[in-house]
């Protein structure tokens, strides 16, 4: 087996290539910037006979996910992709897809929600889908986007999980950017990913009914079962990532630590912008400051324990959210982290920043400045609930 080469590939194309290697059966998607390249490439692969699948060019994202449920229900490996407004339109069905336990894999090219209409990156679309019961993670670079796509099918379709997965990646700053990555060979993927054998299938030979009426007497138990399922999926996620690491040498965890040894101040972020955050940590470490970065890769199921361990001993935790919860208590991730750490006997000061909305860039130097400013804020004892950064006053 020859060693795979390092190549340059646009991240959207990398995701599509991963889907091809996974031999997806049905792709049902609707175009929306900046996800378009993912589906276009898949359509191209199908047209050239390189991927044997049905491409359903549906008439809306709502129908895209509905068709995905239909195809997953008969046992087909199903993939879709969307962003922003498309995700918003799909949300009704997202709740249903996860409660019906359909292992659909969806790539989301994170993009801001209207109004005003904005096609550039932020996490507001992903945050809209927080409570839908899907497994969700955020990737940082092209290699990770590719690797996570391969892992997603294996995690989702595992009979102990049977839950759909959202793979969040930056719109434009990842989707339309050529990154260097090392792809796996088709054979390596085939060995890593078993075929899809669903627990239940719509088959006249063995009829079942999916989606009954959940009367009050049973609805609570049904939701409990769903919740337990997503919590239990964490063990499978770790297992699959560990296996991936063992086979291919790239190790992924729910929560990533960067230069956190002895750090008094920790910056927390998700997605592609964490590369800039890393640069800021390096800048400050060079100056002798004890700062580190915690990157949240797995967002749902929320890694409470990992975060408590990672952040519990810090003095100041700065959470950078790429989404505004308008009129809410703070950035979404900041609110969740505050909640996770609240019951600790000794807990850090938590500072919430919201920025990089609608594709606005936040530079390494700006992150460094935010970290330094936050240490002073935390020391003063009067921390605002949240602060929007980069606003022209």
């Amino acid at each position: 087996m020859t060693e795979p080469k390092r190549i340059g590939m646009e991240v959207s194309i990398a995701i599509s290539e991963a889907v091809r290697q996974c031999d997806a059966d049905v792709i049902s998607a609707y175009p929306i910037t900046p996800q378009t390249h993912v589906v276009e490439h898949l359509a191209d692969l199908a047209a050239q006979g390189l991927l044997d699948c049905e491409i359903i060019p549906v008439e809306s994202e709502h129908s895209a996910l509905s068709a995905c449920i239909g195809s997953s229900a008969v046992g087909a490996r199903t993939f879709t992709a969307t962003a922003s407004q498309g995700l918003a339109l799909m949300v009704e069905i997202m709740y249903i897809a996860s409660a019906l336990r359909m292992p659909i894999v969806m790539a989301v090219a994170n993009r801001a929600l209207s109004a005003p209409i904005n096609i550039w990156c932020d996490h507001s679309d992903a945050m809209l889908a927080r409570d839908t019961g899907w497994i969700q993670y955020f990737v940082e670079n092209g290699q990770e986007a590719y690797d996570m796509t391969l892992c997603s099918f294996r995690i989702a379709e595992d009979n102990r999980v049977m839950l759909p997965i959202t793979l969040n990646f930056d719109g434009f700053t990842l989707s339309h950017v050529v990154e260097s990555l090392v792809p796996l060979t088709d054979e390596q993927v085939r060995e890593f990913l078993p075929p899809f054998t669903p627990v239940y299938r719509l088959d006249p030979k063995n009829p079942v009914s999916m989606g009954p009426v959940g009367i009050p007497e049973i609805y609570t138990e049904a939701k409990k079962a769903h919740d337990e399922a997503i919590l239990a999926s964490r063990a499978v996620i770790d297992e699959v990532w560990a296996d991936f690491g063992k086979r291919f040498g790239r190790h992924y965890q729910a929560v990533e630590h960067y230069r956190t040894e002895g750090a008094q101040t920790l910056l927390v972020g998700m997605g592609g912008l964490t590369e800039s955050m890393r640069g800021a940590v390096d800048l400050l470490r060079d100056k002798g400051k004890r700062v580190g970065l915690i990157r949240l890769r797995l967002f749902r199921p929320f890694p409470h324990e990992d975060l408590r361990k990672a952040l519990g001993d810090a003095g100041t935790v700065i959470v950078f959210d790429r989404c505004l919860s308008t009129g809410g208590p703070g950035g979404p991730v900041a609110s969740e982290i505050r909640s996770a750490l609240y019951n600790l006997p000794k807990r850090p000061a938590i500072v919430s920043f919201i920025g990089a909305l609608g594709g606005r860039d936040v530079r390494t130097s700006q992150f460094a400045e935010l970290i330094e400013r936050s240490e002073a804020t935390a020391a003063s004892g009067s921390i605002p609930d949240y602060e929007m950064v980069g606003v022209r006053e």
Partner: protein
Amino acid sequence: MKRLPTWKEFPLGCVVTTPGSAVLFETGDWRSYFPRTDEDKCIACGVCWLFCPDNSRRKVPRKVKRPGAMYADYFDFNFKYCKGCGICAAECPSCAITMIEESAK
């Protein structure tokens, strides 16, 4: 359901693995009228059976035998499920069915 299930007892995604289990629910106690079939007038055409929304007409052997295989039985109602809508009485081509009040039984 004799005892309500615990959360662990639910199949994946609340899938119902027993199709046709609706028959466990007997809707017969809904009715206020029941259909009385006059065996003599019934020509066993099956129209009442065809038009019953609740599949509550069934073939029953005649008490008084009639010549011919088609006439060996006639159609009567299934008291466990019949909701007493009266469609059978309205559609019967030989007017063999009358709706009688349950309390008049």
